[in-house]
């Protein structure tokens, strides 16, 4: 880990240097929705450094998560016909700098990478992308309505699950601090310091002292075994309001289920992978017509237990970071935090 102190007046140019040579993915607000937009420096007319600096400074969480940069919604895998089959040239070589990723999402990307890399199957597409992505993290000043990162043991002010983490000044005399946690991050910091945008310091991450919510304890966990909850919890009552719209899974930073599909293009077939959702009836529909998760009760149970029990059992992490996205956007007001509290016997 290295730390460089960057004075306020040089902040914008320093951020500009970080994203230089990358396609920048920057949260921008359009029609009232904050979303990551990929922006190519070549376009010229946009002030990318300014936008990126603003994104680091802005204390809002983008509506959708940044998972699409590691795990895109659609990705073509191969093209085949009766005689031949070719793997599709991977887009994993695009160099993308994702700017202003908050600690919850940084932790979520860690979960994604673990799932796609440390399990029985290794997914080169996802991990290959990580090598070409620069993650620029930043903290949250305030908890947003619905957020419960603290209960999930995530420090909203600081995270090392990125290449560069930018800590904002606490008062007007303070400076920005850029921390690096990877070899790639170290290189950029070197360039930054040689370029005269800042100076190295032995400043420790303000982890202990600066947060409002301390270095958190992971409170919201399910201790019980799956078998204890599978049939005993009142899943029917719990899921009664759900409309099965699937939004919760599409915007969740850790949801990672996918489907393989074939599409005909001329006389060839393209096989691609696309996001799927456990909240859809078709997700588990068998060719016979039988559906083991026939109603929203089973589907909702899957979503909660997958996040809090199965991923934890298989990979060691709970696949929910408490970002609150699903709670804020559910049209029926379903609240995973309260559901977990209810089934694990924690008083609401």
């Amino acid at each position, binding site marked *: 880990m290295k730390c460089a102190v960057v004075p306020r007046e040089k902040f914008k140019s320093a951020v500009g240097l970080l994203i230089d040579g990358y396609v920048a993915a920057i949260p921008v607000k*359009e029609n009232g929705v904050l979303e990551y937009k990929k922006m190519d420096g070549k376009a010229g007319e946009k002030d990318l450094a300014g936008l990126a600096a603003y994104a680091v400074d802005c204390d809002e969480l983008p*509506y959708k998560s940044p998972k699409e940069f590691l795990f895109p919604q*659609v990705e073509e895998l191969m093209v085949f016909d009766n005689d031949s089959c070719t793997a599709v040239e991977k887009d994993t070589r695009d160099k993308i700098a994702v700017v202003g990723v908050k600690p919850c999402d940084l932790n979520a990307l860690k979960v994604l990478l673990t799932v796609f890399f440390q399990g029985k199957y290794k997914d080169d597409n996802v991990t290959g992308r990580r090598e070409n992505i620069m993650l620029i993290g930043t903290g949250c000043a305030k908890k947003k309505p619905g957020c419960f990162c603290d209960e999930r043991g995530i420090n909203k002010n600081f995270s090392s699950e990125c290449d560069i983490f930018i800590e904002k000044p606490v008062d007007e005399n303070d400076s920005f601090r850029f921390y690096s946690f990877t070899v790639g991050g170290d290189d950029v910091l070197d360039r930054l310091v040689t370029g005269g945008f800042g100076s190295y310091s032995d400043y420790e991450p303000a982890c202990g002292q600066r947060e409002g919510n301390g270095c958190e304890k992971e409170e919201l966990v399910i201790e019980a075994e799956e078998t204890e909850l599978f049939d005993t919890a009142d899943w029917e009552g719990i899921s009664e309001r759900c*409309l099965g*719209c*699937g939004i919760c899974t599409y915007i969740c930073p850790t949801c990672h289920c996918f489907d393989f599909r074939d599409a005909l293009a001329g006389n060839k077939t393209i096989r691609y992978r*696309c996001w799927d959702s456990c909240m859809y009836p078709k997700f588990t529909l068998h060719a016979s017509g039988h559906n083991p998760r026939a109603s929203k009760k089973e589907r909702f149970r899957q979503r909660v237990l997958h996040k809090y029990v199965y991923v934890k059992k298989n990979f060691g992490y709970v696949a929910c970071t408490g970002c609150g996205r699903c709670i804020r956007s559910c049209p029926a*007001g379903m609240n995973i935090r309260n559901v977990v509290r209810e089934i694990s016997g924690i008083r609401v």
Partner: protein
Amino acid sequence: MELQDRGKMHECQEKQLAGICRKLLDEGKGDVILAYAGGEIENSTIPLFIRGCGEIERLKYDEYCYPNLAKYLLENKGKTGIVAKPCDARAIAMYIAENQLARENVYIIGMECNGMKNMDGSLAPGCCECSVHVPPLFDVLVKCNGEVVEREQYTNTGAPAGYEDDAVFNAVTGESGNAGDDNGVNEDKPLEDKSLERFKKELDKCILCFACRQACYGCYCPVCFMDRTMPAWISTDPGMGAKMVYHLGRAMHLAGRCVECGACERVCPSGVKIRYLIKEINSFCKDVYGYRAGMNPGEYPVLAAFNKDDKEIGFLRSE
């Protein structure tokens, strides 16, 4: 109407609701009552299923009661009471007209309504251009001033004075639609921008998650054509072709059936504003067939009615 007055108006309505719900449960007229409770997030409400007096405590009725509750009626929960704003009531009327629901199984607590708000305080989509303020169908009506009227006693005097038309409504509330809703389509006004570009621009944002379908009262096919696999109608690759099939298909399936609740627009994670298309078809149905969805449960839905003299200009028009 001043904002405080609105707050007070909902307070009056909320008080009455609790009493009505208690009475319904006592008299055994409802096994369950669909209503609203306060959400965890500020300025939001969530659907509430009232089965006992304990749940009545959680009941809430304020200017954030935007969810459309009608869709839960299709789950056959037995005799069901439902708190229904005009758009919910119109959806219920459509279910009855479309034979999805028996009138005697539902007890409708109609709410006179002057529009609901988004979390950010702007007027909710749907409400911006809504001109129906009294539910067209109810068993008991709770008026804005808290007055409760049984169906038998209600004489239709039309909308409360000053609310008959949107212009007046908007002038009174001082609000003119939610920010960002630049569709500006009013049922009575012709569509301004009919370009393919506009359509494509909206579709561009769509990620084909189908949340709009799930949230819509009118999309209740057991298996949507988009979910069929034998044959598959589209690929799940959210390319322009698939998106056009979906949105045009949905618009046609909702022809004249949309009750303008705005649920589809509210749920969309990508801010797609495609409802203008559906509204345009709605106003076409109103102009050509004099039909407005859910205003009269006895009326045959325009898409289901057959008339041999119909010139079918909707489908066959070549302009």
